[in-house]
């Protein structure tokens, strides 16, 4: 297993300004260590504002980190420039959540999907058309769709277009940022199946961001759980979902509705209380302590580190593993 991405103590603070003066900081991502092995799918879960998207965009250098290092194939990305950076961009792609705003309404499908080929000078003229055609067919669209505009497509078809565009420059890594969240269940099933096929066909590595736990569980080999800018638990899908150790992960899993009506009575009464705190003034110590059912005396003072509790299962909690 070789690491495609590795980040060390990755941190991003956004300034909050008032009259040109920085009055506070948004602690968007704080000291995150994450390894994305080549050929695997890593899932990131967490609630709104927990820093999933900021972390992912830093990996692609779309946001410059405040501190920390990002290694891509053992090269520090923050030191790259010019040609090397362009090569890196060619090897990475993104699929966004909302296919209505991620496709330019004034561009023809042929141009939307062909643009990466033009930017990276992969193919010209008829060759480019030929390649676009193959990409469209691969994602389940037809030849006659080439010269249409995005508004003529349904949500599911648009997401197929976005995937075709992501695949165009033959990337190694695709960031899927809530890529199926806006889709209906039956459409989502088709897109998820296609994504798994494409992964093995092209030897891709995915970082899949979602708030939908069942989708993450379905697709991911490894899962990271984030809370208010920090990674609280990381492990294989099996470890995180079958033996969650962090009280936040447990609360999240309890809160997600299950398809079995018989789970109803067993699960009632253990919902997490309170709301997600602000990242401008995060709670001191462990950021989860105000909502934590197993809070200890030290939790408001000491920020827990990610600790290996066995077989690479990392948990940032002082009482990890203890039953509530």
């Amino acid at each position, binding site marked *: 297993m070789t690491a495609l991405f590795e980040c060390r103590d990755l941190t991003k603070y956004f300034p909050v300004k008032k009259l040109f003066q920085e009055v506070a900081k948004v602690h968007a991502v704080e000291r995150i260590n994450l390894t994305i092995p080549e050929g695997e799918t890593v899932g990131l879960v967490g*609630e*709104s504002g927990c820093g999933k998207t900021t972390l992912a965009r830093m990996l692609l250098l779309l946001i410059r980190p405040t501190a920390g290092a990002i290694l891509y194939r053992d090269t520090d990305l923050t030191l790259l420039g010019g040609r090397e950076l362009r090569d890196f961009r060619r090897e990475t792609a993104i699929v966004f959540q909302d296919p209505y705003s991620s496709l330019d309404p004034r561009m023809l499908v042929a141009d939307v999907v062909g643009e990466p080929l033009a930017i990276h000078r992969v193919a010209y003229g008829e060759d480019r058309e030929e390649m676009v055609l193959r990409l469209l067919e691969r994602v389940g669209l037809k030849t006659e769709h080439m010269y249409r505009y995005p508004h003529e497509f*349904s*949500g*599911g078809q648009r997401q197929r277009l976005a995937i075709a565009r992501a695949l165009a420059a033959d990337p190694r890594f695709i960031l899927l940022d809530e890529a199926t969240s806006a889709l*209906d*269940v*039956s*459409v*989502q*099933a*088709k897109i*998820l*199946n296609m994504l*798994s096929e494409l992964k093995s066909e092209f030897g891709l590595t995915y970082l899949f961001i979602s*708030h939908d*736990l*069942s*989708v993450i*569980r*379905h*697709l991911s080999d490894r899962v990271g759980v984030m809370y208010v800018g920090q990674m609280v638990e990381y492990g294989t*899908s099996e470890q995180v*979902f079958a033996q969650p150790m962090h009280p936040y992960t447990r*609360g*999240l899993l*309890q*809160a*997600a*509705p*299950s*398809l*079995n*009506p*018989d*789970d*109803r009575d067993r*699960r*009632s009464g253990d*919902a*997490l*209380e309170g*709301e*997600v705190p602000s990242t401008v003034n995060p709670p001191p110590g462990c950021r989860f302590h105000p909502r934590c059912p197993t809070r200890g005396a030290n939790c408001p003072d000491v920020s827990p580190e990610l600790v290996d509790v066995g077989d690479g299962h990392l948990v940032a909690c002082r009482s990890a593993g203890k039953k509530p």
Partner: protein
Amino acid sequence: MEARENLLVVDRLKTQFFTYGGVVEALDEVSFEIRRGEIFGLVGESGCGKSVTTASILGLVAKPGRVISGRILLDGEDLLTKSAKEMNAIRGSRISIIFQDPTSSLNPLFRVQIQVAEPYIYHQAMPKKRALREATRILGTTGLPDPEQKSRSYPHELSGGMRQRAMIAMALTCQPDLLIADEPTTNLDVTIARQIRDLVRDLQREFGTSVLWITHNMAVVAQLCDRVGVMYAGSIVEKSDVRTLFRDPRHPYTVRLLHAIPSAATSGAELEEIPGSVPQLIHPPTGCRFHPRCDRALDVCSVQKPQEVEVRPGHFVACHLFRTREEDA
């Protein structure tokens, strides 16, 4: 089954939209009933007619749409025969609604307190001072922290979850017979959505309100509802109590929809797909609207619209497969 009285009966409701492109047959003879004190779930994918059903019940179908035929009985009175003025008196007092997006449902220019107090002032002619006090009290019962102070906030000062609590407070002010919840947790985070679902269930038990819960999420139905109707392309294809539906779904659409949902069991495996896509309701398929996508379709399916068949007490399926089996027997 308990013989609880029906609060709302929707009977062969047909709503259509007359657009320049043609007639959109949004609802094709939708029938269901909601009993007193139960949570009835209406589930289906985008464009299946869930929200048009709500609008029809509330008398809020916007032009060029119109309810063509059918009956909507609230306690035996047909809402479709009511005048606009009578409907105004019913909305907010006997039937109220919470929407998906609490941000756009609240007026950003007024404090939450006065917005929650409005139904008291309009429907119960309560003096303003007392209405404001009552509003603060009901905001407290919906779990808004520090209601005395928070009720004097403007909507933008509250989080999404708190705004949805304010909407629920507003909907419950006049103790309605029926609360319609149109995807109220879809925009909320997982843990907050869970809190809101628990809240609606607690309040529903306390006040004995009936709830029509509209959602696209099967798992939410499984955890919250007593009975459920599955909609597809403007019709209810299957209807039963929740446990039966999940244990033994009969309609091919329900079966395949449940298999398309990722879960622990599907991890790493391929998800089952439903071939094709949801039809345009401007030219819906003839006969059963699901037949072009159905792998068990018979010849009759493309010709004749299937009638509801009661496959077991309280479990209705609108599918020819069951009709023929019954006739064979």
